[in-house]
């Protein structure tokens, strides 16, 4: 094998969209492969965990890990990669904040297993079997499955993370910039998020139509709004757009596709909890001031967790629902 720097790519609790994002670099991926050796990438190439175990500690220049931690297997492998890598990058919203799979923190193992293995209408499971970590067949075959945790964790609650590459999935520019920074040795301070810290509203193409003071009398969902093509600020129309509480750098892909921001790039540096930051912003644009009129506006929002914590529930202060 050549003496090019080695990198590993691993996936945990994620959809595979982040691997897709790497492939989506198109010809750009050739530059990457020219500069580094990919020595571990279970989705795309045939390597075994043992190949990783054989490396010396710190032999890999960097590991890119996407997905939150949901299974004991994932915890074991990310800890192994941490040992073998000089740098660990949390790649994509799930690794950075828990992501969409992190919404499962509104449930726990018991309620998820109950729904998935016992209640779902199309199930055929008369003995109500649920996955076990160990099973012995005919007293000679010992089978093992990873443990399914009660909660989903962002990567940095399990191992130390050096850099964060946010996005669902990270935009090609974000990825290219990160790769360039690594190869040219221009990485910022450890612990940084490799994306601008200004909020999305700052670079929003609809910034011009945003009035100085937004005042709304009800919240609406995009499908309830018939003038979406007006290039109007979504918040002004009463549609929840996470722009004020989300960092920019994504290229405003959703806004340009006429959809409000859902917050996949996470909170800017000075906001600790994206959902609560957004809650604060939303509260301040409610127009009525009377004590009995305010709840009526808030009632037009059927759910708060979904819009506020679509990507960030496991990294929020609340972390999960309290299960009694």
């Amino acid at each position: 094998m050549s003496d090019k720097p080695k990198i590993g790519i691993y996936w945990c609790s994620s959809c595979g969209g982040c691997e897709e994002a790497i492939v989506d670099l198109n010809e750009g991926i050739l530059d990457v492969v020219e500069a580094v050796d990919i020595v571990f990438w279970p989705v795309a190439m045939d390597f075994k965990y043992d190949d990783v175990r054989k490396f010396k500690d710190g032999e890999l220049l960097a590991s890119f890990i996407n997905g939150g931690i949901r299974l004991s297997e994932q915890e074991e492998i990310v800890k192994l990669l941490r040992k073998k890598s000089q740098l660990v990058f949390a790649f994509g919203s799930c690794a950075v904040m828990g992501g969409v799979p992190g919404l499962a923190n509104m449930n726990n193992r018991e309620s998820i297993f109950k729904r998935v293995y016992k209640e779902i209408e199309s199930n055929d499971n008369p003995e109500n079997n649920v996955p076990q970590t160990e099973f012995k067949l005919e007293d000679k075959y010992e089978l093992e499955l990873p443990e399914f945790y009660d909660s989903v964790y962002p990567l940095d609650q399990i191992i130390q993370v050096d850099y964060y590459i946010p996005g669902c999935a990270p935009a090609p520019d974000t990825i290219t910039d990160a790769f360039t920074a690594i190869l040219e040795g221009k990485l910022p301070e450890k612990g940084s998020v490799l994306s601008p810290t200004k909020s999305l509203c700052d670079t929003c193409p609809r910034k011009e139509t945003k009035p100085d003071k937004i005042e709304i009398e009800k919240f609406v969902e995009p499908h309830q709004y018939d003038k979406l093509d007006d290039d109007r600020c979504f918040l002004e129309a009463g549609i929840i757009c996470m722009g004020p509480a989300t960092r920019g750098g994504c290229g405003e892909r959703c806004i340009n596709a006429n959809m409000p921001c859902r917050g996949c790039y996470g909170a800017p540096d000075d906001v600790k909890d994206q959902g609560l930051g957004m809650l604060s912003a939303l509260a301040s644009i409610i127009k009525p001031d009377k004590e009995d009129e305010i709840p009526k506006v808030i009632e037009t929002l059927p759910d708060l967790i979904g819009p506020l914590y679509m990507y960030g529930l496991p990294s929020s202060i609340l972390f999960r629902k309290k299960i009694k």
Partner: protein
Amino acid sequence: MTETKFEPNIVAFVCNWCSYGGADIAGSMRLKYPANVKLLRVMCSGRVDPEFIIEAFRRGADGVMVLGCHPKDCHYIEGNYKTLKRYNMLKPLLDQFNIEQDRLYLDWVSASEGEKFARVAKEMNERITQLGPLNWKEVIGQHQSREV
């Protein structure tokens, strides 16, 4: 077997211009209010970010009170209206997380209302005592403290 009585841990954010004065007057008037209500003075109830409230719960508060100037009396004109709107939004959020809404309480106490302050503090204490401990660390915290 001796059973220790549950004494709730209550954090009260009080605004500098009205409610802190109210608490002060309550002291001057020698009114009694529960010692487990811990006061935190902020310049305006509008300064109380939802993060402060949730962080207080995470760090062991069983109840959080926000006290500000009466409507139209805010030193900064509309700070307390902002608080009122956030409060109304935080309540359903707490509910979705299975945290009893009564653990969060908002009221207006002016700088002359020493008696109201003592009453509000006492009622809050009774409410939270009845609800029992939040046990954030036991129920939620353990999940988060796996390893870093």
